[in-house]
């Protein structure tokens, strides 16, 4: 069934399956990113607290450990059900290729297990472990985040760049090499991009909470540290992310030309292609865009007249929905650049006076940095996923051929969407409640930890 314009999918079951997967992943990715980045922030605060006998820093680490535990719980359950959905929704991926991409998932399971154990140990260790050992338990948490994200990104990169098997004359998958699949050509850059994104999301998000506090007049040492530690981490990641993003985009010219063309909204392969800001592709024509001559070619090839691929580099039925990809990509780039500007603003002020900027505008913008980073991550993810369409395994399996034949996915997609909307609202409410309790100085119990009311 041909798709409708603007990436609307005509087949309702396929649309529902893709939508359910998108919302499940899109929800989980936020918590996964926080699970990777938040432990690093907590580690820095904890280290500072011990090294400089800084009570405020240590107090922050303690509060953050509680927030981290709650967010990790949501991440754990939303991640668990993804392994259900891989099989429920995409038999045409998991049936033929489950053995090819299984290994990274297995190893991710190990990382998740270690992360879950050490988060519990850290949370419970505040009054049970010797201080030194307690501090050290943060390191496996950070390491598990770094490792776990590699494994998941390796599986995703494999879908963009399938490797580690051969296809026999009868169409069967042969000579499966799980290591070659795991270390496929796309994994290095995709993983680095995601890891930096996770640090940006966590850093800007935590900092934005304290930016709100700053605007409300909470400017004591604890709040200052609560802003500076995560903001600095995110600010270090931001410029690196721009460099990695550039590499990631340029890699696509050869690896996935149609994805590149959709991102840049280029209908035709040409030399000296313009950079298209905004705009939509309607009936093969770019409409309503601001075009900067030759810039797409320069960014892609480092030559003003370099030839970059257009959508016409692949047959029509292999082209991704260009408008969705283009808009998502540009939103990501715009927000990423904005965050970089904010990071530079901070860096200049810090370099001059060893203090964050005083301008109220900096702080106002900083309150939005967390949400901006999340949107940038989500749109980046939409860019890579939708940009891969119509393939679920690039060049080999079409998404239409991989989807379940079961009917009724519209219903499960609806229920799961409502569930995640509700869960999102409750999560925010609980986080606000935690912040309130922290602000009022009420030392709340460790979440589901051994409370004082427990019987002896």
């Amino acid at each position, binding site marked *: 069934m041909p798709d409708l314009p603007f990436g609307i999918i005509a087949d309702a079951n396929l649309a529902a399956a893709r939508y359910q997967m998108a919302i499940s992943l899109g929800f989980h990715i936020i918590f996964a990113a926080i699970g990777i980045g938040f432990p690093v922030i907590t580690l820095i605060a904890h280290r500072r607290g011990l090294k400089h006998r800084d*009570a405020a820093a240590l107090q922050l680490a303690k509060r953050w450990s509680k927030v981290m535990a709650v967010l990790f719980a949501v991440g754990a359950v939303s991640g668990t059900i993804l392994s259900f959905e891989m*099989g*429920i929704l995409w038999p045409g991926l998991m049936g033929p290729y489950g053995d090819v991409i299984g290994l990274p998932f297995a190893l991710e399971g*190990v990382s998740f297990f270690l992360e879950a154990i050490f988060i519990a140990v850290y949370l*419970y*260790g505040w009054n049970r472990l010797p201080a030194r050992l307690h501090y050290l338990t943060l390191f496996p948490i950070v390491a598990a985040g770094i490792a776990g994200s590699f494994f998941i990104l390796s599986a995703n990169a494999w879908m963009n760049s399938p490797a580690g098997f051969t296809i026999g004359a009868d169409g069967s998958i042969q*000579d499966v090499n799980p290591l070659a699949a795991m270390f496929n050509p796309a994994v290095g850059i995709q993983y680095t991009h995601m890891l930096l994104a996770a640090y940006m999301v966590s850093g800007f998000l935590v900092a934005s909470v304290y930016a709100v506090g700053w605007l409300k007049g909470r400017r004591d040492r604890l709040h200052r540290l609560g802003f500076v530690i995560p903001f600095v981490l995110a600010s270090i990641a931001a410029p690196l992310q721009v460099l990695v993003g550039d590499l990631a985009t340029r890699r696509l010219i050869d690896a996935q030309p149609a994805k590149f063309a959709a991102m840049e909204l280029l209908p035709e392969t040409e030399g000296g292609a313009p950079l298209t800001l905004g705009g939509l592709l309607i009936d093969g024509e770019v409409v309503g865009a601001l075009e900067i001559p030759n810039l797409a070619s320069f960014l892609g090839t480092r030559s003003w007249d370099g030839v970059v691929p257009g959508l016409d580099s692949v047959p029509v039925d292999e082209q991704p929905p260009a408008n969705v990809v283009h808009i998502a990509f540009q939103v990501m780039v715009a927000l990423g650049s904005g965050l970089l500007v904010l990071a530079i603003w901070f860096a200049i002020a810090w370099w001059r006076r060893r203090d964050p900027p005083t301008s109220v505008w900096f702080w106002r913008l900083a309150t939005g940095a967390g949400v901006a980073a999340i949107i940038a991550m989500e749109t980046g993810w939409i860019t890579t996923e939708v940009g891969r369409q119509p393939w679920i395994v690039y060049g080999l399996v079409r998404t239409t051929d991989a989807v379940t034949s079961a009917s009724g996915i519209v219903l499960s997609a609806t229920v799961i969407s409502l569930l995640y909307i509700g869960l999102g609202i409750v999560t925010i409410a609980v986080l606000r*409640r935690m912040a309130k309790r922290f602000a009022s100085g009420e030392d709340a119990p460790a979440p589901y930890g051994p409370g004082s009311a*427990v019987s002896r």
Partner: protein
Amino acid sequence: MTLANVVLVVIWLGVTAYGLFGGADFGAGFWDLFAGDAEKGARVRTFLEKTIGPVWEANHVWLIFVLVYLWTAFPEPFVAIATTMYIPMTIAAIGIILRGSAFAFRKWAATMQRQRALGATFAFSSILTPFFLGTVAGGVASGRVPLGNAAGDPFTSWLNPTSLLGGVLAVGATAFLAAVFACREAAVAGSKELGEYFRKRAIGSGLIVGGVAGVGIFVLAADAPELFDGLLSLRGIPLMVASAAGGLTALWLLYNRRYSVARLAAVVATATVLWGWGAGQYPNLLEPAVTVSDYAASDTVLIALLLAFAAAALLAVPALGMLYSLMQRGVLGETGSETGESTESLLRTMLAEEGDQRRGT
């Protein structure tokens, strides 16, 4: 023994671990639901929360492990199960989300009313999830999942006598395990009252589950003849006998308040049911004749899985040991560690010093 068989055994170890540890977590939710109103049940609920608090997230790993190893080692049978069973699996997945998040949020709820709503969500979904996972098991065991993309009946594959038996047994076993474990935890914590509370419930649920399992044999004879024949084979009979013996021993030990050993007997009684199912169905993953050897991935893949399993065991076992020893310490007393000053007391010292400085200036 072929590599595929070794991997299958490893997967079944995962199923067992999820059944026992994950099961006990679900069972805690079961008893939470029936603990009475907010005031009367507070003591029981707090106690249950404490016993599962640190481990429940980590226990998801067994489920993830089973799913991932199944799809890697036996991809086609895995997608056959997932696509045919998408309704109960989706409900179980929703149960997992609701349960985990409600549990994590409950403590932070601002009002008693909200706390109760979250608590009820946690408890109710703790029953929902094992029930629907049990119906999936029943459908697979009774040969209702054919190979292919959603090739089985979307409803009767899990709405049938064996599935119902599977669901009820799963919920019952989680409740029984949780109650037995709670007896022991209560004893360690020195609470006689809670010990008696759960002793009664452990014996009661044990009798019910044993009864259901006994009747279940007849259900299987009528509804799942292949499995029934397998259970009556030389592979199946010892496991069934062991399960019955384990169950009876557990009840006797519970009656005599020997909770520590009762735990082991309860574990044997439950684990042997899972292994009985596996042994009864072997060598077929699915009916008819979708065998382990025919549908396994290549040896390279299986070896990679086994190496990953070995690495996991090497890393995770010491870490898990650390967590459990911490929990025991937590149950014994929260005064801090004997081996050195805790971070908490360090923080208190620092705050006191700061206070002194402020007063001094």
